Structures are given as C-alpha cells and as structure tokens.
C-alpha cells in the first residue's frame, strides 16, 4: 500500500463517520479536528475503523500523534511496513 492508498482508506473511514465531508475536501497538512466535526465518540469510531479495515491497533497514548492526515499516513505506513 502506498501513501495515497493509506490516505484514501483513512479518508473513507472518516467519511463513513462524518458523511458531510465531501470527497477531496480534506487538506492533508491541516489538523483534522479543524476540518471535521469529530467528538470523542467519533474519534473512537475512526480508531475502530482503522482496526477493522487496516488491522492496526492504535494505543490511546498515540492519539496525540495523529493530528493531520499526513500524520495518519506516516504513522500507519510505519505500522504497516
């Protein structure tokens, strides 16, 4: 899986939880929470989505590392390598 594939999968998971997000609307370098209305329940659903779709378990201690889509891609690429 290359960076674009990982990004597309994460965006698909986010859009399944926040359907108001349009395709291509998210900027990779901006904090996600500034772009999408995600409360803690939504956030947990994203984490569960990644667990189910990409089989990566993200510990709570790592939540702070996942601010932007770029962060997500770098983090997941390292875990999937």
């Amino acid at each position, binding site marked *: 899986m290359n960076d674009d594939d990982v990004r597309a999968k994460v965006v698909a998971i986010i859009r399944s939880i926040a359907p108001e997000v349009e395709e291509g609307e998210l900027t990779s370098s901006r904090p996600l929470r500034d772009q999408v209305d995600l409360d*803690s329940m939504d956030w947990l659903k994203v984490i569960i989505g990644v667990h189910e779709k990409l089989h990566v378990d993200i510990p709570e201690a790592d939540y702070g590392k996942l601010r932007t889509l770029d962060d997500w891609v770098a983090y997941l690429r390292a875990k999937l390598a």
Partner: protein
Amino acid sequence: MIEVKLPAMGAEMEEGKLLEWKVKPGDGVKRGDIIAIVDTTKAAVDVESWDEGRVHELLVPVGDTVPVGTVIATLLAPGEAAPAPRAKPAAPAPAAKPTPAPPSPARKAVSPAARARAKELAVDVEKIAGSGPQGAVTVEDVERAAQGAKPADRAAEMRRAIGAAMSRSKREIPHYYLAETIPMARAVEWLAAENAKRPVTERLLMGVVQLKAVARALAKAPELNGFWRDGAFVASQAIHIGVAISIREGGLIAPAIHDVDRKDLGQLMRDLSDVVSRARAGSLRSSEMSDPTITVTNLGESGVEAVHGVIYPPQVALVGFGRLSSRPWVDEGNVRAMPLVTATLAADHRVSDGIRGARFLAELRERLQHPEEL
C-alpha cells in the same frame, strides 16, 4: 383486548405520522418488539409493544397523522379469542381530528406530469394524498411530499420542538443552579490504564464513567430522579439517563440509556455508542424517547467550561459536564496542575432544595474519586 396507544415520545410531542407498520394482524409480539415506525417532529421513531400478544387489528393507515394517545392497534392477550371487529380508530375526544377516509384500493389518479415528477424526486405517489379533481395527485402534491422529506425541513421542525419544550421548561420550572469543580486525576489515570488493557473495540470514554457516576450519586438524591406530573413529583426507582446527542444537521435529541445504575461500564459504552449511531441515523425507539428520568449533557468537547442547562420536562433535573482540562489546583498548600471538570446541576425547586442538590454534587465528586468501583 390490549389497546396499543401512540406514546408521547418527548414532552412537546402532540401527534405522530404513521410511516410504516412492522407487524400485521395475526403476528405474535413480545414486550419490546417494534410494531410501527412513527414520524415525530424530531425523528422517525420505532414504536415498541409494551405487552405480549397477537396482533388483532391495525387501526391507523400508513400516512395518517394521529394525536398522542390514539389507539393505533389492538392485540389479543395470549389465549384471548378475537371479538367482533371494531368500526374505527378510537381517538381521545378533545384532541381528536377528523379521520381521513381510508385510501381507496383502486389505482390512484395521478396526472402523467405528477407521475414523472414523482419519479424524478423518488417519491411514492401511492402514499400521497391528492388535491386535484377526484383526489388526483398533482405535481404540487408530489413536490410538497418531497419537500416534507428534506433534512432542512426536519432541522426547522426540530428547532421548533426544542423551542417549545425549553420555553415550557423556563415558564413552568423554577430552576436553581449549582456547580462543583471535580478533580479528575484518578479517573483519568484509571481510564488510561483500563483502556490499555481493553481491545480497541471495547475502549471506554470518560463520558461513560461520568454517566455511571451520576447514576451512583443519584442513589443519594432520589428527588432529582423522576417526573413532575399533575402538580406533584413522582420519583422513579429506575435510573434512565437521557443523553443529549447533537445531530450533525443541527438540533439535539436526548434518548434514554436504561438502568444506568445496574450496568457495567462496558455495557454502558456499547449502549451509548449504539444510541448515538441510531440517534444520528434517525432510528430511535419509543421507550428511549419517552422515559428518561434525568438528563446528562456533556459540552466539554465543544470547549466550554461549564453548562447551565435547561431541564427537559417532565424531568426535574439536568446534570452538565464541561471541558476536562488541566488547571491550577491547590493540594495540601501547594499549587499543581490537575485535570479538572466542572459539573453542574440544574434542578427543579418545586421538588428539591439547594442543599439536596449540593449533596448530590458532593457525592458525584466522591464517586469520581473511585472509578474502579463504578
């Protein structure tokens, strides 16, 4: 013969539109089975049966709007024989509206233009009441029906419903407000350790810990849990907490999580996750809408420090949680950074006094110092 009445699903609900029957005459139903879907001003809600029996008659046709309390169906109790069929739906007299004539079984008159427009708008012409000659469905009827299904309309209706309930609350309920700053270090540490042990799919949120702490603390303040009905307080033995859930398109709904005091945190987390998903998808159940005994609202995620809430009638109290954040705290003479949350109580002075409310908040604070016991 058991009469199934349209329940009041929310204080401001006066009528509901029958969208779909989930059962037919002859079907067996158990308590809790979903028998119909009814559109209220806030959402489409699954109406559950309160009894066990066999469906005898469905008395309200799909598409009809009837007042709360109308008998919508009858059930035969187990072992009961079917009596002679009844003539028409029984609606409570003062609120009764003329019952529209049942839809004719013959093919509906629909103008060709209306049929084409209905196809474009994905509207079922068979379900539209026609206003044209001989009841024919016109283009305008189709467009009106399509309009009715739009989320913008739903948001406006929900805003009106919230306005009606909150206006009634502020008119009738003499609110008093209390606030308590609660140290959360123990709860935060305990939750982090607990979640590290749990699989991803079973992780808990602090909101669930707070809900359970509220339920535990209510044991010491029974006058905050129940309803104001007919000029008197009726305490509730059960603790059904209405959780305020924001809807993505705007608005708010507060369905109940039942028996919060008797469920463990894992079960409460599953219940909360389920009710949030269903609230946002518009598939709540009638019992969830009609029986919260107190409401909890958590606005901390929006960044506010404290919530001074408006009680949802006929309830008599509302608990609010603000943002969980690290702030200065004096501990044995030293200032240190401490995760804190401000919990607030809005309560009905007809039922309780500030001292009882203060005891409740003190107990809530105490319960949150022992998260492992929740």
